[in-house]
């Protein structure tokens, strides 16, 4: 493949005139084996930086399916705010990426349009739910992709594909045009090969948007300034609940990452987040409760696919949803409906929200003492396709280190930290206090500059 796609866009865009063409050619060549893209643009502007967009973020010039049969062929009347801002910046949207249906999953196997594959080993998952975005960047099909995060759906696939994945602070990026899954957790995230690229793209898409009343009016920092400032004297807290049970290569890799940070002059100390082990339990109540409400809009009336056998209005709802949703989406809507139902609300939804409030308290205490909190991004490297599809709970536990940042709202970034013996990528997660994306990117950049794992490319 073209060398230009091996470079960060911050270098490549200065050097070439056929950047978008190179990207479209790479997609054409690699997508049959990776299934990272659901739609490829035939009319992309040939100028600018080629960018891929997760297919639950709306674009007017291509379909937006959310990886679901129920939205097959849906064409949004408007662009998401993040997409609009990327276009004004000079991005050319080359395609829409594969995902777990409605962003519900950690492997991209729950896509109605077939699983995406991991570029490092096509028998393995790319992670999820933004697996198509992570695979597309890892395979050098595009330099930048947007994903979305509800419990780690950008960071976890970025980790499994060996690329950078960032979740900004809740509200930092407008959710207008991001098809809602869990509105108190959802946030658009960024996948790139390098930290510098992520910093530039964040500067483009961040900021208040009148269309999203939860988007923050907090000032947007210049994320490129001081990126090279290093981590000397900065305080990193190692979340003991995240690492005490780790074993083998993931443990060794994490210890190595800490040693790198220490050598760069950072101070490293243990910190306790007692509620961390409950993150998945809290997440699957809160996220699914919100999803059960948000996905009620898919009823076969205003958009999407209507069941052909529906005779009454009630049939239109029940049959369209029964036929249109996949098993994982049904499972989550069912769990959420249960948690909100009369008689169970207090024991499930209200309790999960109270544990979440306690977790927020734990994090704010930790951020009073530390600049950053660190864990591995995932408890293991990429698993084989099919390994967890019959065991939803074990799939869910892949998000144990990523879900807390969504629950408390803080920014977090996954940065490549090396490879295991099988040659699969491993990843370091750095979390920071709300709106501290600037320092977080600076820390990630320092680690990346020292280790340079992003330069290794998958054997395609």
């Amino acid at each position, binding site marked *: 493949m073209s060398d230009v796609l091996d470079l960060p866009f911050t270098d490549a865009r200065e050097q070439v005139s056929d950047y978008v063409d190179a990207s479209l050619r790479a997609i054409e060549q690699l997508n049959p084996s990776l299934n990272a893209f659901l739609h490829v643009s035939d009319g992309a502007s040939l100028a600018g930086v080629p960018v891929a967009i997760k297919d639950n973020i709306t674009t007017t010039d291509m379909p937006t399916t959310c990886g679901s049969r129920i939205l097959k062929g849906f064409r949004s009347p408007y662009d998401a705010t993040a997409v609009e801002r990327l276009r004004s910046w000079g991005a050319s949207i080359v395609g829409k990426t594969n995902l777990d249906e409605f962003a519900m999953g950690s492997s991209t196997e729950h896509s109605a349009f077939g699983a995406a594959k991991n570029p490092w080993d096509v028998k393995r998952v790319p992670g999820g739910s933004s697996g198509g975005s992570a695979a597309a960047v890892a395979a050098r099909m595009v330099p930048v992709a947007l994903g979305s995060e509800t419990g780690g759906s950008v960071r976890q696939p970025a980790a499994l594909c060996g690329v950078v994945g960032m979740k900004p602070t809740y509200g930092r990026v407008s959710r207008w045009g991001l098809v809602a899954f869990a509105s108190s957790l959802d946030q658009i995230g960024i996948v790139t090969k390098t930290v510098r690229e992520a910093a530039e793209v964040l500067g483009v898409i961040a900021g208040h948007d009148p269309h999203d009343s939860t988007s923050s009016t907090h000032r947007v920092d210049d994320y490129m300034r001081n990126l090279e400032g290093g981590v000397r004297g900065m305080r990193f807290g190692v979340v003991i609940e995240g690492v005490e049970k780790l074993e083998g290569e993931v443990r060794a890799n994490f210890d190595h990452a800490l040693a790198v940070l220490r050598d760069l002059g950072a101070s490293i100390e243990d910190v306790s987040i007692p509620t961390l082990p409950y993150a998945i339990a*809290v997440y699957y109540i809160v996220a699914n409760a919100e999803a059960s409400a948000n996905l009620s809009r898919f009823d076969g009336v205003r*958009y999407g696919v209507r069941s052909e056998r529906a005779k009454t209005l009630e049939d239109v709802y029940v049959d369209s949803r029964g036929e249109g949703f996949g098993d994982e989406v049904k499972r989550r809507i069912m769990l959420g409906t249960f948690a909100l139902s009369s008689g169970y609300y207090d024991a499930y939804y209200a309790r999960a929200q109270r544990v979440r409030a306690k977790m927020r308290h734990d994090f704010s205490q930790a951020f009073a003492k530390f600049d950053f909190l660190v864990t591995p991004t995932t408890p293991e490297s990429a698993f084989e396709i099919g390994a967890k599809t019959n065991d939803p*709970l074990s799939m869910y536990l892949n998000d144990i280190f990523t879900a807390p940042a969504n629950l408390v709202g803080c920014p977090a970034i996954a940065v490549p930290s090396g490879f295991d013996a099988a040659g699969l990528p491993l990843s370091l997660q750095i979390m920071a206090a709300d709106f501290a994306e600037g320092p977080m990117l600076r820390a990630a950049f320092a680690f990346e500059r020292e280790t340079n794992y992003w330069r290794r490319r998958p054997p395609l």
Partner: protein
Amino acid sequence: MKITRDEARRIAALARIEMDEPALDRMAAEMTTILTYIDQLSEVDVEGFAERAAGEATPMRDDTPHAPLDRDLVERNAPAWQDGFFVVPKVIGGE
């Protein structure tokens, strides 16, 4: 928390999702496994932590009119559409 087939049927009806008997059985078993895991939340002491954190006020804005979506673009996505309206099976005075 054990979910029975009848409980799964009740929830599926609330969620407006068509599900046959084998699907209900499978769903009941999976929900039981997941909710049993979630039941560990009962061991957390949440005294002093509210369901909704103080200060999380809903942002307000002025109620000013905006241009509506282009009708043609809405129609393009509608499963059934006639004379500017979404069409659904008759609700009142049906057969």
